[in-house]
């Protein structure tokens, strides 16, 4: 009963983990990421930045690809929001205030001057950054701090015609999903075994693993043994069927591994740690055939004198002698 409950819980947990791992593999695919874009962004100023609340996850791998027409210079970067907000102060920009997957943006246009306070390539606080002509891309893992992403024009250029592609995922997600699938499968298997009442260890190993029994009060192991009579299907592990005769024997195993039979009342004082089932055939073992001549042969008595010579004695004379069996003598 106890094993069944544990087994059910482990089985359910294993199934959940396996399904989660499978889902991870299916959703993110072999490259472990989800890609969306390119999407056109109507950027009137010199910058597109995300608000501090937008990138609210950590340990997510993100990739941002910004493309602008006519080989215009463009810059992409991710930085701590304190740095980026101070950098963007007073700059005309498009601010992304919320983002939902796969691509749903809420934005607001902030008024300001059409120039950045300094070249983005000249500052040292970017967590990740890249610049290029016609396009730039970064790939970074979101840290455990509030960060914002920015797409900036470089020099006297602008961001008209901007297209953005984003990708996000988990590094090694496919392998992680596979691992979870296998672990979940293993747990489910273990749960099934537990439900069946099987153990991952042999009883003898379990007994060895237990502490030694120091006296009568705590035997090393108590094993109830179930013997059933089933002459036709003598297979171990079968459930007991109605009508079968069941004999329960209780034994404890001492520190030397020696089994001692005890009564059911004595066994009730101890915890049952292992159950073993033996199937016993109904057919009794054949009695050894009596030797044909020996059965009817009359008993002959001898007495042995001091010289070792045997003398036959009749039954009437027997009361004068002390009897010994032939083997004992």
């Amino acid at each position: 009963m106890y094993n069944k409950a544990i087994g059910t819980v482990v089985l359910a947990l294993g199934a959940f983990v396996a399904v989660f791992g499978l889902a991870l593999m299916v959703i993110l695919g072999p490259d472990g990421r989800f890609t969306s874009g390119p999407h056109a962004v109507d950027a009137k100023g010199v910058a597109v930045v995300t608000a501090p609340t937008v990138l609210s996850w950590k340990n997510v791998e993100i990739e941002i690809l910004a493309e602008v027409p006519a080989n215009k210079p463009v810059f992409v970067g991710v930085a701590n929001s304190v740095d980026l907000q101070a950098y963007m102060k007073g700059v005309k920009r498009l601010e992304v205030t919320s983002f939902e997957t796969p691509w749903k943006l809420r934005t607001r246009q902030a008024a300001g001057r059409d120039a950045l306070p300094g070249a983005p390539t000249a500052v040292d606080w970017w967590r990740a950054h890249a610049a290029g002509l016609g396009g730039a891309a970064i790939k970074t893992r979101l840290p455990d701090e509030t960060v914002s992403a920015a797409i900036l024009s470089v020099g006297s250029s602008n961001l008209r015609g901007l297209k953005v592609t984003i990708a996000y995922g988990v590094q090694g997600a496919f392998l992680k999903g596979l691992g979870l699938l296998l672990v979940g499968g293993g747990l489910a298997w273990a749960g099934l075994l537990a439900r069946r009442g099987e153990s991952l260890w042999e009883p003898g190993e379990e007994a060895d693993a237990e502490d030694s029994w120091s006296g009568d009060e705590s035997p090393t192991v108590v094993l109830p043994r179930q013997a059933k009579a089933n002459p036709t299907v003598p297979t171990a592990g079968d459930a007991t069927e109605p009508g079968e005769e069941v004999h329960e024997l209780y034994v404890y195993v001492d520190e030397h591994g020696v089994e001692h039979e005890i009564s059911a009342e004595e066994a009730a004082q101890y915890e049952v740690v292992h159950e073993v089932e033996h199937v016993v055939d109904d057919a009794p073992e054949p009695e050894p055939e009596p030797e044909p001549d020996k059965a009817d042969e009359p008993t002959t008595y001898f007495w042995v004198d001091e010289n070792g010579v045997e003398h036959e004695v009749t039954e009437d004379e027997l009361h004068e002698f002390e009897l010994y069996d032939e083997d004992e003598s």
Partner: protein
Amino acid sequence: MSRVLRAVGIAALSVLASGTLSGCGAIPQPRGDVALEQSANPSDVAEILDRYRDVRNTAISLLDPKPLSIVESGPVLAIDNGSFDVAQRLSRTQPEDERQLQVASVETPKFTQYPLWFMVTAFDPASRVNVVQVFERLTPVDPWLLVAAPQTLPATELPGLRHDDGHVIPVAAHNGKGMSMSPQRAAAAYAKALASMSGSSAVERDDFIKKRRAAFDQANRLEGVRVTQTWAAERVEHALRTDDGGALVWVTLLQLDTYTVDPGIKVSWPDGSPEQAFLANGISGSGKLRYYRQVLLFLPGGSNGKPRALGHYGGVIGGSAQAALSPIPAPGSNPLSPIDPFPIPNPTASPGEATPNPSPTSLPTARTHIDLNPDD
């Protein structure tokens, strides 16, 4: 199932589970609340200090303070410019190995907006003092600059700083919670104590105050010379919470000495002194000398704690003199012997070592000469 198969299964599961769990730290998860926080990270600090050291050494090698402007700012730069002027005149240099500051600790507060700053404690083997520096970045496009560098004696122990999540806690200039006064008021009270003849009961009369007052009194004892001195505290920008609930405050004070010299008398300073670098011809008539004094104040926690200076750094940043309009013939009295109106503990400072030795026992060696000039 056989025992071998089961053992293999268990081992395989263990390996897979451990492999998977080892990557759990990198599993994406929401960060929770969005906290706007920024501080200098250790790798940034190491780079900043290396860059400062390189530029400082370059300036020292060239005997030119100009490179310092890319790593220093404000009062520190002004003070160092003054010291470089002196060093240029005297062609003083320092041995290379003595220019290396030995960083003892770095403390980085967290901020929600600019400016950002952090504190460095380092030992200066050249001056044999500890330097308690503050590096600041005003805007995201500015470099990190040294803005404060008061010096303490090696024996002086700084109060323990309170930490939150590994970062020290900045105190706003007007936040006097848990203290007898706010850092800004402490700075003002300290400036008042320096300017006052009788001192101020609001601050502890420490060695720095005693020495400044003694120097002022000595200058005023010169016959035919009147000296007035004013002190003003600048806005407090840097303060950190101490373990006792008080604050460690970097205070910048502007000291203005105004000399009025009777006709026929000239006040001059010896070669090599910072004052002489700015007033090469001395003062006859009237003149002014401006000093920046950076003081590291400890404002103890509790309502009765009086602020006191743990260290200081300073020097002349400017001077001007105006000759008397109608010189009067010399009275023919006896010339005044040289006296010490200002204790300048380290007059032989080399470039980058402009600060006076903060040792309370250091003797002033600068000389102020009051020369009677009968030709005037």
